[in-house]
């Protein structure tokens, strides 16, 4: 046996122009969460307890796209999802479409530990959360000013994507998309959108 080990991530697809202070903030959160996890493993906690504990920390901090700090839907709301898997027995739990559960990963853990199911979604997951008496908050708790701003940019960028598709399909002139030219980032895209709209993922 090689002893304990832990790894964390806060998302991929980073904007290459991410300001230095945002980079340092991200490193600070990762370092802190890594420390929490390492201390747990050192103290003899199980791997599944540690991954839940660390992801709860990451969900609670608004720096990354999960829990508080989640990115927004087209409607400006937050819909979160999470999963957990214990290699011991390959047990698992997952949740989707959460709007009020403060720590989605812990609800996923409860699905694994206290339900006969592997995956609950939307109102079923919310009902289960209330049945299990997990902490719930108003949807606005998860929404940050930064993500409201990013949604506005994403909507503008999305209109570019639609416009470009239409330009190809309908052979319409590119100058009908003139409003889109204000957002450029060197051509890097993810899911069809400029990488710069991801915050910070």
């Amino acid at each position, binding site marked *: *046996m*090689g*002893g*304990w*080990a*832990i*790894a*964390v*991530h*806060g998302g*991929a*697809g*980073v*904007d*290459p122009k*991410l300001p230095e202070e945002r*980079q340092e903030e*991200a*490193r600070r959160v*990762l370092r802190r*969460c*890594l*420390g929490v996890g*390492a201390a747990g*493993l*050192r103290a003899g906690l*199980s*791997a*599944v307890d*540690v991954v839940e504990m*660390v*992801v709860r920390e*990451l969900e609670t901090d608004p720096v*990354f*796209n*999960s*829990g508080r*700090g989640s990115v*927004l*839907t*087209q409607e400006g709301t937050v*819909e*979160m*999802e*999470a*999963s*957990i*898997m*214990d*290699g*011991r027995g390959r047990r*698992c739990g*997952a*949740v989707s479409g959460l709007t009020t559960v403060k720590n989605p*990963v812990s609800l996923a853990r409860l699905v694994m530990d206290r339900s006969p199911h592997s995956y609950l979604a939307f109102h079923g997951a919310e009902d289960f959360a209330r049945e299990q008496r997990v902490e719930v908050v108003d949807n606005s708790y998860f929404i940050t000013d930064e993500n409201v701003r990013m949604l506005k940019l*994403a909507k503008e960028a999305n209109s570019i994507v639609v416009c470009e598709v239409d330009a190809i399909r309908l052979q319409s002139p590119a100058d009908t998309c003139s409003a889109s030219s204000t957002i450029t980032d060197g051509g890097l895209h*993810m*899911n069809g959108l400029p990488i710069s*709209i991801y*915050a910070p993922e």
Partner: protein
Amino acid sequence: TVGCVAVDNGGWCAAATSTGGLMNKMSGRIGDSPLIGSGTYACGACAVSCTGEGEAIIRSTLARDVAALMEYKGLGLQEAVDYALKERLDEGKAGLIAVSRNGEVAYGFNTVGMFRGCATEDGFMDVAIW
């Protein structure tokens, strides 16, 4: 997206992933994070958590593939991570972190960067982005 993978002193592995999904997504869109085998997987060999372009990760069953490469092809952890990212993602952009039951840590990404960190029992600790 955030994620954590760990192996404890007993050699048991676990993974967890959590996300708000994709900015400006349609209501009802499901990404890879809650899909066991795609964004998250753990078994007796390893634990994996993925992040990035959800639709590509789903198509490639990325997390399970890392474990399968170790189980069926006998690859080491980092080798399996590299192979899955290179051969299974097609044009998709993603990253992942992984640990093995032997206490190894591995990661990989084909994006510009991935926020990540790792620590091991022997005192090694690293946090990086690019």
